[in-house]
């Protein structure tokens, strides 16, 4: 049989696309290399604890029943209910740079007030920036490249405020070092500052299970342990995929969430097809399981974005990890009805992919420990020291991400060039997910939905 669409990757974007296609009666098969679903945003169990691979927070938070905004759109498109995601809002997050801390909650007024208080000469400038942000259409599949640094720099004249605003937006979704596209900046600005953060008590597991259940109930097929080795084509059309085990799966259309460079490699195209550049932004992260709630130590923030100098260096670090900046995510600090069983703190820093990918096996464990200690030493300048409460630790590096997701260099935000309209050199091969360009958990789902709507449901 030939499927209407074969989807490569059972992550958030692939599953969301699959739901749309299956709902409208298309035959669809999702192929996943790994033993489980979720991709860059998967979940796992280690030493009797459940962990999320990528989830810090779901952005675009909206109260149940909200009729507009990305979350409402997402739920409507997938025919899901608000309680399917059961998102609990954050308490409060902070951006901490030398001399200034900007706090923000899901209500935008707090950040506005903080900026007026701490950067009074920028109050009007900030309003001008908001007008530019508001004018951007984040759903468009046609993007003209505009430098965010230029636009923001034209509005805000205090360089420190510029860096502080860029910091969370880059950390939570820029594939490009030092600058980002202004449409992407606006998307992240709205998702994080206007709308805010939420998290299901159970973590990403809840969302992924709801997606898979919906997908299968609509007749969609999911094949795990079914990695794709190559895409077959005739002239300008893809005709089938060949799996690692040699099986051939015929398809009218192929939608790949594997990444742009990764997908091009599956095509084994001739040299006339321009190969995109892989990304270079990756992270190292440590998950600490604690014997008490972080709030008992006096730590109440949900996410802390820190940088210990006026300039924020969002780029591939020369050292294995950059301890000057980082993200401290505390999953306990959301407004749940019942608390999490254990304390949990996740500390993330920029990491050099080449270093971690090429480290000899016998040095890997030791280097992880060394860098973990350096990163934590840096991070406990910003939150109460929790180290004496640690029950267990798990760490991942770019090597881990590459191993489990196949994404090159372990780049969670993918390659720098985004295929926003999802088209490739083949007429019926489309991209969704990280390299289409809508990033994050909500972004990934909207990506799958948008590309499915644009091309695969006509």
């Amino acid at each position, binding site marked *: 049989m030939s499927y209407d669409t074969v989807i490569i990757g059972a992550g958030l974007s692939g599953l969301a696309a699959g739901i749309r296609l299956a709902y*409208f009666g298309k035959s669809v098969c999702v192929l996943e290399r790994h033993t489980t679903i979720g991709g860059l945003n998967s979940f796992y169990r280690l030493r009797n604890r459940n962990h999320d691979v990528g989830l810090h927070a779901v952005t675009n938070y909206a109260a149940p*029943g*909200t*009729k*507009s905004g990305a979350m409402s759109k997402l739920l*409507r498109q997938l025919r899901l209910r608000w309680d399917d995601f059961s998102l609990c809002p954050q308490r409060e997050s902070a951006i901490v740079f030398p001399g200034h801390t900007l706090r923000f909650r899901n209500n935008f007024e707090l950040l506005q007030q903080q900026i007026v208080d701490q950067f009074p000469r920028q109050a009007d400038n900030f309003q001008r920036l908001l007008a530019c942000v508001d004018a951007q259409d984040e759903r468009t599949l046609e993007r003209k490249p505009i430098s965010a640094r230029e636009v923001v720099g034209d509005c805000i004249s205090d360089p420190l405020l510029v860096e502080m605003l860029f910091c969370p937006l880059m950390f939570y979704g820029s594939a490009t070092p030092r600058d980002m596209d202004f449409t992407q900046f606006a998307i992240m600005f709205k998702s994080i500052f206007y709308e805010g953060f939420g998290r299901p008590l159970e973590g990403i597991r809840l969302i992924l299970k709801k997606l898979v259940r919906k997908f299968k109930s609509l007749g969609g097929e999911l094949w795990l342990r079914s990695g794709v080795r190559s895409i077959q084509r005739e002239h300008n059309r893809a005709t089938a995929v060949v799996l690692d085990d040699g099986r051939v799966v015929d398809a009218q259309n192929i939608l790949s969430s594997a990444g742009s460079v990764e997908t091009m490699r599956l095509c084994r195209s001739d040299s006339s097809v321009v190969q995109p550049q892989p990304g270079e932004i990756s992270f190292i992260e440590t998950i600490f399981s604690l014997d008490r709630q972080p709030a008992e130590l006096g730590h109440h923030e949900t996410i802390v974005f820190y940088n210990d100098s006026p300039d924020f260096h969002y780029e591939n670090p020369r050292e294995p990890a950059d301890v000057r900046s980082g993200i401290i995510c505390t999953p306990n600090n959301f407004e749940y009805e019942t608390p999490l069983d254990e304390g949990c703190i996740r500390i993330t820093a920029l990491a050099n992919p080449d270093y971690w990918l090429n480290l000899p096996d016998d040095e890997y464990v030791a280097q992880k420990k060394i860098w973990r200690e350096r990163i934590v030493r840096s991070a406990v300048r910003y939150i109460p020291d929790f180290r004496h409460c640690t029950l267990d630790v798990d760490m991942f590096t770019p090597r881990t991400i590459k191993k489990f997701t196949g994404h090159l260099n372990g780049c969670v935000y993918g390659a720098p060039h985004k295929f926003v309209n999802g088209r490739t050199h083949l007429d019926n091969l489309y991209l969704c997910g990280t390299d289409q360009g809508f990033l994050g958990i909500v972004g990934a789902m909207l990506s799958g939905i948008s590309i499915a709507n644009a091309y695969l*449901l006509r």
Partner: protein
Amino acid sequence: MNLNQIRQVILEILARIVPDEDLSELQDKVPFRDQMELDSMDFLDIVMELRKLYRIQIPEEDYEQLTSMSSTVGYLTPLLKDVSSPV
């Protein structure tokens, strides 16, 4: 299907697409977009739901005739007159 049955079908489709909207006070002659949060993505879903349920294809150039309940019912009446009502 008669006019009322078609109207009911549209209401049920809207309830699936925009479940948080209160449809009980929907005014037939006022455009949908003026009464609820309905954008082009939602609108395409209405068209696709109709295709899924009744196998009717609506060409893109006809979309502008589906702006309100009255105009939609009017457009669909000849297409659905021989189809039996789901109720």
